[in-house]
């Protein structure tokens, strides 16, 4: 491609003068090799600019979409919250919220263009960001369209429907670009629909392959983990967060969501593959190569969708290709990413009470007594999980994995006593929590190397580590904080107008290292005082 903005080779390297994909690079580590900003000068970080977004039609927005013209500006708070990780390519930041996408000058924070989508509906809770291929951008909408824009102008090239909003699908992921595949997932678990991942052609939007998260009929892979076709058709296994990719193994790694009905398993006895699973797919064919299921037969909404981070490290003196995930169910998992075999399984929170232990294969063993009953059972974590979608980070300099966690309890009451429940099937009532933690986990043992406790805040929040020996994250009390990743000492902080709401990014531009974070409706850019 001539004169393209994004050189595809960038995607396979640690990000330096670009942040070209959701995770910065394919590994999902969110570790930058940049060290201009480092422990010795982080106290001199200063605000470069703030850009506040204005959503919806008006102020010169380019308008697309299949829905009616809205009667007023969007009021859903999810639309005005930047949960997306921006891309930065050639001095331009690209980011999105539900139904909205922007290009912003990375030097000044000024808007270059704004695209807005007239929606047909769907849940507008968040959007993780965009994917880029050459000069083209891709993002997904709550009413399940994949939209491609011209990065230069923000003008729409095409859009294509990937799922039916009337069946309660809604789409939040950032598309991931691997070769000439645009990898697109979806979400939604209100009405018992199956999940899938699709690859689309970057030029035409046409579908290349589709992988279903569960068997659709007897004889399909995984069918023996469901009692019948009725139950497998109720599906689940939503693909609502971006995955990671190993170019050498040619595998795309993805975590899948919960099975349906969500909080009761009586109509779906068995492990319910491939829900709540980490799967490795051949990126050219969409065929499953291996899987590991962190929550067999989940009945608590503990998606395994969290970022599967790819790590190369020595275990017992031997170099290994590994994959680490801090899971919503409260466990940390380290796998061999060539075959999906368990290396480490370790609990991340003390309150966890749903598991009877760990099987020889490294899977937690669910305690059936902690599945919702009519008179209620007390379970930790709550459905929101010990952690959730905000991106964690792995720092190869410390060997530690950084993740925000929370220790909550909920009561789970069975409300649908039909032999074939649908929807959620049970009600949850939150009854208390023991605060949040920033945890630094030693990947080789699963032990917590250090922990920063927040009695009233913290919890799942985005992380970034850098070669400057810095860990940037939020504290749930509106601060952007720089920690020493080796020991958890606080080195710098800045008060923002809202809580950190995305994963921080960093890049070099004009010889300066920048740090860019989203907090609520604004992007903040920091750099060193000249």
């Amino acid at each position, binding site marked *: 491609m001539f004169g393209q903005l994004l050189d595809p080779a960038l995607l396979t390297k640690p990000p330096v003068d670009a942040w070209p994909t959701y995770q910065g690079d394919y590994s999902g580590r969110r570790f930058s090799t940049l060290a201009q900003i480092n422990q010795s000068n982080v106290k001199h970080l200063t605000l470069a600019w703030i850009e506040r977004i204005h959503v919806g039609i008006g102020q010169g927005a380019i308008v697309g979409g299949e829905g009616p013209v809205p009667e007023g500006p969007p009021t859903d*708070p999810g639309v005005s919250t930047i949960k997306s990780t921006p891309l930065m390519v050639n001095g331009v930041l690209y980011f999105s919220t539900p139904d909205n996408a922007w290009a912003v000058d990375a030097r000044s924070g000024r808007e270059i263009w704004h695209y807005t989508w007239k929606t047909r509906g769907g849940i507008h809770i968040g959007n993780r960001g965009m994917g880029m291929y050459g000069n083209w951008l891709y993002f997904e909408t709550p009413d399940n369209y994949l939209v491609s824009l011209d990065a230069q102008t923000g003008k729409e090239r095409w859009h294509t429907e990937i799922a039916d909003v*009337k069946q309660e699908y809604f789409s939040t992921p950032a598309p991931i670009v691997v070769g000439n595949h645009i990898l697109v997932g979806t979400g939604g678990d209100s009405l018992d629909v199956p999940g899938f991942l699709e690859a689309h052609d970057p030029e035409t939007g046409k579908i290349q392959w589709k992988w279903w998260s569960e068997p659709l009929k007897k004889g399909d892979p995984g069918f023996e983990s469901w009692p019948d076709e009725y139950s497998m058709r109720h599906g689940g296994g939503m693909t609502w967060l971006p995955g990671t990719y190993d170019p050498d193994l040619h595998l795309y790694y993805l975590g899948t969501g919960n099975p349906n009905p969500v909080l009761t398993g009586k109509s779906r006895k068995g492990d319910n593959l491939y829900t709540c699973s980490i799967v490795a797919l051949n990126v050219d064919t969409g065929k499953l190569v291996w899987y590991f299921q962190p929550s067999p037969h989940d009945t608590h909404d503990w998606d395994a969708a969290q970022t599967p981070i790819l790590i190369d490290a020595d275990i017992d003196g031997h170099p290994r290709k590994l994959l680490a995930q801090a899971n919503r169910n409260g466990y940390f998992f380290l796998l061999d990413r060539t075959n999906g075999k368990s290396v480490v399984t370790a609990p991340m929170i003390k309150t966890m009470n749903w598991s009877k232990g760990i099987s020889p294969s490294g899977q937690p063993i669910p305690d059936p*007594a902690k599945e919702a009953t009519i008179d209620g059972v007390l379970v930790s974590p709550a459905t929101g999980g010990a952690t959730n979608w905000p991106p964690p980070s792995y720092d190869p300099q410390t060997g530690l994995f950084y993740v925000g966690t929370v220790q909550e309890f909920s009561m789970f*009451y069975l409300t649908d006593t039909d032999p074939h429940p649908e929807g959620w099937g049970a009600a949850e009532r939150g009854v208390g929590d023991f605060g949040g933690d920033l945890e630094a986990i030693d990947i080789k043992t699963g032990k917590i190397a250090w922990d920063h406790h927040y*009695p009233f805040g913290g919890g799942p929040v985005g992380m970034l580590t850098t070669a400057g020996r810095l860990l940037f994250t939020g504290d749930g009390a509106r601060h952007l904080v720089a920690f020493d990743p080796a020991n958890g000492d606080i080195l710098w902080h800045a*008060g923002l107008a809202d809580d950190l709401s995305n994963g921080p990014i960093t890049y070099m531009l004009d010889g300066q290292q920048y740090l860019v974070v989203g907090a609520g409706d604004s992007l903040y850019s920091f750099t060193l005082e000249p």
Partner: protein
Amino acid sequence: MRARHLDVSHEVSHKVIRAAVALLVTACAPLAAPLAAPLAAQTPPAAPDPASVERGHATFTSACGFCHGSNAKGGEKGPDLLRSVLVLHDEGGESIGPVILHGRPDKGMPAFPFSAQQIKDIANWLHSSIAATKDRDSYKILNIVTGDPKAGEAYFNGAGHCTSCHSVTGDLKGIAAKYDAVTLQGKMLRPDFSWKEGNPPHQVIALSFTVTLPSGQSFTGEPMNLDDFNVALRDANGAYHSFARTKDGPRVEVNNRLQAHLDLLTRLSDADIHNLTAYLVTLK
């Protein structure tokens, strides 16, 4: 919490909830309850006329229930209609109507000569059933009084140490006459949060902060903020006090008068909860 899941999603987060509490509990401490407050609900579609829904239910049960199941989730012959793409895309019976009137002879479904109103009623009932299935905040908690009241009483007087603060002839006298079982259980498990069913949740201030300066001067009051860099409180006179937190102080003490209830969460078995509930409901 009922509130958490109005935010119908996978990603409900601790901080989102804390922020919602801060918005909701405008008059008091923003940080007393990181959990559980109602977030803005998705705007529901206009609810159909309940009489029409009722008629539709009756018609469906007698004419359609044999094949599709009385709850429309599917039966021996007919498919699940709550997850039917045709039904989900229907508006007011316009797609369902032709199927009812003409049947599906190829699949063994006969035609039904229903009036336009009957078709609309059936459609309204199906759409309201779908809405009830997908709206998990509308799910009704069933009978939770299954435990042994004697065992609950023993726990109350013994292992639970409940009598160190409570008395069934004092503060808890007649409590079961005031609250239903679900509310009572909620008050026991989460007393810093009053959430009588159907009413907006109400924050109970359980926390206080005491900040002691290096000089020895101290301030006590209702919590306004506590993070790694700042502590703030409002004292009994209504005055707001804010302090920077550094290595050298000030010293901050957090007092939660309901800490014993929070700590119970790590000790209670499900049987203890059921038994205590069965006992509490006897305190009429």
